[in-house]
């Protein structure tokens, strides 16, 4: 029997976030899209494992992550995998932030251990709760909290952030307001 159309729509609604998460894991858009496709196929084939009324998005994220982990283990035996590739794919140069600062952020993100980066993306970008992220990663909530906290602290250390004044456009704005800005 084909699944309820609402299931199909829920799966499609999750695709943009799945892609963003997949790119954060793979660092390669084509590979990420293949991973999302494989995730949808697996999910479709195993819909009987999904509990109606629970979080479809979290379920799909879990499948995607597990697929990636399996693939990663296989690939690691074959060729070295570039860690931190998510950061390498962040080509956006947001207008509201300085290029130098964003470049610093990309570099810092690339240096995070994969587990920390994954937790940070799930909680800090995908909007999952700590509990949901723990479910996706198959670990304790405290572990996720610890990873996120260490990731944020490490990012700040790598970017030499000690206070909010050291970070971002505020620094430039502050310089302008104090009369020391270059007006660029």
């Amino acid at each position, binding site marked *: 029997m084909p699944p309820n159309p609402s299931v199909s729509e829920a799966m499609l609604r999750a695709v943009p976030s799945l892609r963003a998460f997949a790119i954060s894991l793979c660092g390669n858009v084509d590979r990420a899209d293949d991973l999302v496709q494989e995730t949808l196929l697996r999910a479709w084939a195993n819909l009987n*494992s999904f509990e109606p009324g629970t979080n479809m998005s979290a379920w799909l994220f*879990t*499948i995607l992550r597990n697929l990636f982990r399996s693939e990663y283990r296989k690939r690691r035996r074959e060729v070295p995998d570039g860690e931190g590739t998510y950061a390498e794919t962040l080509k956006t140069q947001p207008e509201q932030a300085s290029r130098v600062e964003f470049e610093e952020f990309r570099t810092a993100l690339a240096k995070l251990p994969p*587990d920390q980066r994954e937790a940070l993306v799930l909680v800090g970008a995908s909007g999952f709760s700590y509990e949901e992220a723990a479910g996706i990663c198959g670990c304790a909530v405290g572990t996720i909290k610890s990873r996120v906290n260490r990731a944020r602290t490490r990012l700040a250390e790598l970017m030499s*952030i000690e206070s909010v004044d050291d970070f971002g456009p505020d620094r430039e704005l502050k310089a302008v307001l104090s009369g020391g800005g270059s007006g660029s």
Partner: protein
Amino acid sequence: MNEQNKPTGPKGPMAGSMQGSQPHKRKSSLTRETLVKIGAHLQIPYNEIVGQGVPDRFVTLIRRLETGEIAASQDDDFRGENAASDDKGS
């Protein structure tokens, strides 16, 4: 001054910053504002990808699955939400 009443210096979370003669110790915790800023930086590229919407290939895939044009085979080793993970550590 009585030895017992001798000031022993500041205590508590602000103690480090109040001891001017001590070497500056890096703060181990970040302000909420800084955390928010980090989150915002993280979300900019993420939201850009999300903003691209659903590429046609996935719409086509789901429609073909719906019509049975392609069939996804069930996995014996399927690891969904309730599956045990080997990733217990940090």
